[in-house]
C-alpha cells in the first residue's frame, strides 16, 4: 500500500509537475513561490497517501494542496504587509470550484512562452524551460549546459525574479505577437535538445533528450497551425529515432551514413515523416522544416531508394538562407561534396563563411574528409589532426584519429 502510494506520487510528479506548476505560477504570477508550494504539496502527498490511500485524481489533490500552501504563505506575509497581489489573485482563483475529476487545461505552453521571453537573456531560456516545465534541478541542467550548478542556479533565480518583477504578460501571445515570439520558444526547445544531444552515451544528457522532445510535443500539439512547431518536432523525432545507432557496441562514434538502419526506431521515423508532410501542407516553410527534410533525406536509404544528393545539397542551400551558422555552413559544404565531388565541397567550404570556423571541429572534420577524397592525403591528415584536437567527445576524437590514420 505504502509502496503503491509512493509510486503514484512519483508518477504524478513526473507527469504532472509542469502542468501543475504552470497552473499555479500563471495564477500567482510568481514562479519561485509556486515552486515552493508545489514541492510542499508533494511532501504532503508523501505523508498522506500511504496513510489514506492514493486519491482518485492525484493531480487535482496536489493542486489543492499546493494552493493551500500558497495561501498559508500569503496569509503569513499578509500579517506583515498588505496582502500581496499574488495572494489576492490566488484567493480569487480558489473561490472557483475545485477541478475535481475534470482535467484542467494544460498551460505549459504559456509557461514556455514566458520562459522564452525576448526580455530574458538567451542563455537562460532553454534552462529555465527545462526547470519549470519539466522539473529538472539546477545541477542536472548545469551539467548539460556545461555551467557549474551554482552559476546555473543563480541564473535561474535571477530570471524568475525578472519574470515576477518586470511586468511581463503571462497570457499566451496571439496574432502577430505569437508569430514574433514563437521562434524564441522553438529555439529554446532546440537548444535544450542540442545540449542533450552532445552526450550520445546511453542515457546521456541526463535523459534530457527525451525530455526536450516532450517540450517539442507540447508546442506542436497546442499550436496545430504552426508549421515550424511541427517541423521542430519532426526534426527531433528523426534524431531520436537514430539514438541507438549512434554508437557501436564498443561505444565508438558511428556517422549517420554508416549506421545500421535496423537499429533505427521505425515508429519515431514514421511519425516524423507524417509531421513533416503536415507541416509542408501549411505552406509556410522555415528553418526547422528544412532541417527535418535533410534528416529525412539522410535516412531515406533505409526505407527505399536513397535520396538524390543534389536535392540534399539544395536543401542545405535553403537552410543557409534562413540560418547563417557555422553548422549550416559546414553541413552545406559536406552536402555539395557528396553531390558534386570533393572539389565542389572544398570550394563551398572556403567561399567565406561565418566567423569562428577556425575553431569549429566539424569544419576540420568535413575538410579532412573532402581532402582525403580529393586525394590530398597529407593535407587531409593534418585536418583530421586539427579536428581531433578540437573534439570534446572522446568517442568522436577516437573516430577522427582513426579516419586520419593517426590513431
Amino acid at each position, binding site marked *: 500500500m505504502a509502496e503503491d502510494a509512493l509510486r503514484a506520487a512519483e508518477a504524478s510528479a513526473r507527469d504532472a509537475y509542469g502542468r501543475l506548476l504552470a497552473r499555479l505560477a500563471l495564477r500567482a504570477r510568481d514562479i519561485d513561490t509556486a515552486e515552493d508550494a508545489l514541492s510542499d504539496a508533494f511532501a504532503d502527498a508523501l505523508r498522506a497517501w500511504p496513510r489514506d490511500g492514493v486519491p482518485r485524481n492525484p493531480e487535482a489533490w496536489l493542486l489543492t494542496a499546493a494552493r493551500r500552501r500558497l495561501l498559508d504563505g500569503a496569509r503569513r506575509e499578509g500579517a506583515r504587509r*498588505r496582502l500581496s497581489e499574488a495572494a489576492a489573485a490566488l484567493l480569487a482563483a480558489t473561490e472557483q470550484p475545485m477541478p475535481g475529476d475534470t482535467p484542467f487545461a494544460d498551460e505549459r505552453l504559456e509557461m514556455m512562452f514566458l520562459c522564452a521571453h525576448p526580455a530574458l537573456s538567451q542563455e537562460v531560456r532553454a534552462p529555465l524551460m527545462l526547470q519549470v516545465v519539466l522539473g529538472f534541478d539546477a545541477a542536472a541542467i548545469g551539467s548539460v549546459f556545461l555551467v557549474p550548478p551554482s552559476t546555473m542556479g543563480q541564473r535561474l533565480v535571477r530570471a524568475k525574479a525578472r519574470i515576477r518583477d*518586470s*511586468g*511581463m*504578460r503571462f497570457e499566451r501571445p496571439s496574432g502577430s505577437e505569437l508569430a514574433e515570439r514563437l521562434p524564441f520558444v522553438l529555439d529554446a526547445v532546440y537548444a535544450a535538445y542540442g545540449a542533450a544531444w552532445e552526450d550520445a552515451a546511453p542515457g546521456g544528457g541526463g535523459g534530457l533528450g527525451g525530455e526536450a522532445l516532450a517540450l517539442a510535443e507540447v508546442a506542436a500539439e497546442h499550436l496545430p497551425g504552426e508549421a515550424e512547431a511541427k517541423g521542430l518536432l519532426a526534426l527531433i523525432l528523426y534524431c531520436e529515432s537514430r539514438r541507438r545507432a549512434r554508437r557501436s557496441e564498443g561505444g565508438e562514434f558511428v556517422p549517420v551514413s554508416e549506421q545500421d538502419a535496423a537499429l533505427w526506431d521505425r515508429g519515431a521515423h514514421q511519425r516524423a515523416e507524417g509531421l513533416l508532410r503536415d507541416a509542408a501542407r501549411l505552406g509556410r516553410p522555415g528553418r526547422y522544416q528544412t532541417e527535418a527534410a535533410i534528416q529525412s533525406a539522410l535516412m531515406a536509404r533505409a526505407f527505399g531508394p536513397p535520396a538524390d544528393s543534389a536535392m540534399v545539397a539544395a536543401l542545405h542551400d535553403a537552410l543557409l538562407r534562413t540560418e547563417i551558422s557555422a553548422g549550416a555552413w559546414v553541413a552545406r559544404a559536406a552536402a555539395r561534396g557528396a553531390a558534386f565531388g570533393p572539389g565542389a565541397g572544398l570550394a563551398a567550404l572556403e567561399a567565406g563563411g561565418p566567423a569562428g570556423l577556425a575553431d569549429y571541429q566539424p569544419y576540420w572534420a568535413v575538410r579532412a574528409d573532402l581532402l582525403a577524397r580529393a586525394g590530398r592525403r597529407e593535407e587531409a591528415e593534418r585536418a583530421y589532426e586539427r579536428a581531433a584536437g578540437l573534439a570534446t567527445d572522446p568517442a568522436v576524437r577516437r573516430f577522427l584519429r582513426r579516419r586520419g590514420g593517426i590513431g
Partner: protein
Amino acid sequence: MKVTFLIRETSEGFASRTDPERAPAYWAAYAAYFDALREAGFQIQGGALQPPHAATTVRVRDGKRVVQDGPHATSKEELGGYFTTEMPDLETALRWAERCPAAEYGCVEVVPNLEMAPRG
C-alpha cells in the same frame, strides 16, 4: 503597472538639441513621440533633462557633504530625460520604448515602479 522610461542620450544626441541644423528634427521627433503616447491614452509625468554638465551629485560621507560636479558616473549614454506612466504590461512598454527617438542611437531603460503599500 506603473513604469518609468529612462531615456539615455549620446553626446551627439545632446548636441543635436542646440545645433541649428539638427535641432528642428530632434525636437520634432520627440514632440511626435509624446503626442503619440498621449493620443494612445497614456498620462505622462516627467520630461527632458539638461545635459550632464548641468548635473550636480551630492553624497554625505562621515557626516560631511561632498559635492561633485557632473552626473554620478559618466558613460557614453547619459540620462537625457525620463517619464512615468501606467501601462498594462512589459510588452506594451517595450513597444513604446522602441518608438522613442533615443532608442535608435542611445537607449531606453524600462523599469517598473515599486508599488508601495498604502501607509497605516
